[in-house]
């Protein structure tokens, strides 16, 4: 009754997924700096290792060895809790993402997904709203008015864009008819990607994803020119590292989620007609999935070094009077379309 191999399999899968997530998040910091250098006609970091490939390691060590200062008037417990919650919410999201088709190993079917929740989409949505707490608690516990101001900015931005995100997801669920991420991916074989059914929904979702990850053009919570350093002004050492790193993990996870929901996830066109064995198909699927994710990561970085940031009132106006009505129209149109079919 107690399936020993099942537990071993899941343990290996969990460590692999966490390891790959942290690895890609670490190397997207390097990619960010290298691409920024490319866009600005510089060389970028090239001292640590060949082509600067060891730079993330050096950055991590630097964060680790720096003194973590807790301000005298800060609430010590909450000050540490804030970045930990941010990191936790970022890492928990990879549990429901299907990384590839089933593998056949030693006569067992191994699903490349930690757990296939029947409410996976709601789980992700809950984690998005849970991520607000890390920012709010950390900013408040710093006992600094600039931290508090940018905390209020960050959390009201996240809450506002959650609404439009939720509405665009409801329209997606209307077309797919399921909340399980795996079933959503399996429902888009070949070229039948959901982006073709929900182009407007995808546009709304990607804008909201940028806002939720606090990336340019929505990086108001941490704009140095107005608010010193944002909600993590008082942070230093590894606690600051957690906040900054959580942003890159969130970028990776939201790229994976966008790929799963709108771009077919691990589904690869034309592969079914080649008649390859299942394990080969699965490996191709995983590789293709990661190619799509890396393209989204490139998009995140590309936009950061191309566009200027919004003003705060422009951001709020876009969210409340632009995206939410658009998402409602999209939802109504999808509902009418589904009703007519």
């Amino acid at each position: 009754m107690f399936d020993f191999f099942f537990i071993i399999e899941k343990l290996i899968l969990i460590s692999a997924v966490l390891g790959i997530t942290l690895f890609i998040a670490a190397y997207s910091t390097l990619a960010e700096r290298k691409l920024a250098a490319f866009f600005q006609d510089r060389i970028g970091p090239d001292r640590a290792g060949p082509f600067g490939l060891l730079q993330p390691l050096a950055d991590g060590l630097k964060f680790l060895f720096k003194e973590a200062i807790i301000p005298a008037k800060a609430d010590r417990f909450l000050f540490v809790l804030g970045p930990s919650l941010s990191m936790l919410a970022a890492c928990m999201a990879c549990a429901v993402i299907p990384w590839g088709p089933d593998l056949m190993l030693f006569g067992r079917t191994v699903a490349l997904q930690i757990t296939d929740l029947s409410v996976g989409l709601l789980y992700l949505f809950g984690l998005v709203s849970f991520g607000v707490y890390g920012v709010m608690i950390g900013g408040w516990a710093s006992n600094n008015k600039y931290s508090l101001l940018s905390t209020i900015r960050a959390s009201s931005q996240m809450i506002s864009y959650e609404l439009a995100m939720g509405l665009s997801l409801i329209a997606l669920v209307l077309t797919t008819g399921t909340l399980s991420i795996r079933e959503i991916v399996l429902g888009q074989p070949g070229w039948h990607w959901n982006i073709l059914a929900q182009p407007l929904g995808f546009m709304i979702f990607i804008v909201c994803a940028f806002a939720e990850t606090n990336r340019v053009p929505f990086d108001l919570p941490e704009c140095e020119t107005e608010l010193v350093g944002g909600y993590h002004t008082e942070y230093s050492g590894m606690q600051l590292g957690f906040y900054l790193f959580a942003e890159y993990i969130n970028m990776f996870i939201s790229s994976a989620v966008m790929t799963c929901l709108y771009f077919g996830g691990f589904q690869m066109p034309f592969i079914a007609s080649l008649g390859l064995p299942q394990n080969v198909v699965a490996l191709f699927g995983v590789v293709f999935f990661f190619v799509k994710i890396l393209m989204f990561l490139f998009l995140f970085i590309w936009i950061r070094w191309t566009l200027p940031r919004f003003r705060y009132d422009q951001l709020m106006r876009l969210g409340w009077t632009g995206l939410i009505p658009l998402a409602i129209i999209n939802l109504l149109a999808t509902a009418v379309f589904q009703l007519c079919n």
Partner: protein
Amino acid sequence: MSDIFFWVFSVMAVVSALSVVLNRNPIYSVLSLIVCFFSIAGHYVLMGALFLCAVHIVVYAGAIMVLFLFVIMLMNLKDVPEFVSKWWHFGAAGAAVAAMVFGLATHLFQSYNPRVIGDMQLKPIAQALFTTYAVPFELSAILFLSAVIGVVALGKSE
């Protein structure tokens, strides 16, 4: 296995609920209530109501508690007395709660009829919401709309 989890979630819920009531710092009260809601969500999972658990987290932890945290962070609550001041207030409160528990115990425990704990499907709930309970559902939509208008009217400065 689920027995252990039942006790873990129950102890968590009761301890964090007590912490909500007894903590002097409002921020810690809010955080304790969030912990309490998560342990109640754990109970929902144990009862097989996965969808309900997800909705519970999104509504309570994701929306309602964020509002509370916002309000408490923005108000300077340093000089508010947190507890009632006179000892007989505590006595009266305790007596009222004791009387209520007695009433609950004598009344509820006789008529309590638990359902079979099992996996709860999404479809029957959705169908019930849109057929049997369609009128209350629409009414709650109107309630939401009126609340939005009311909050905007209340929030505007004079």
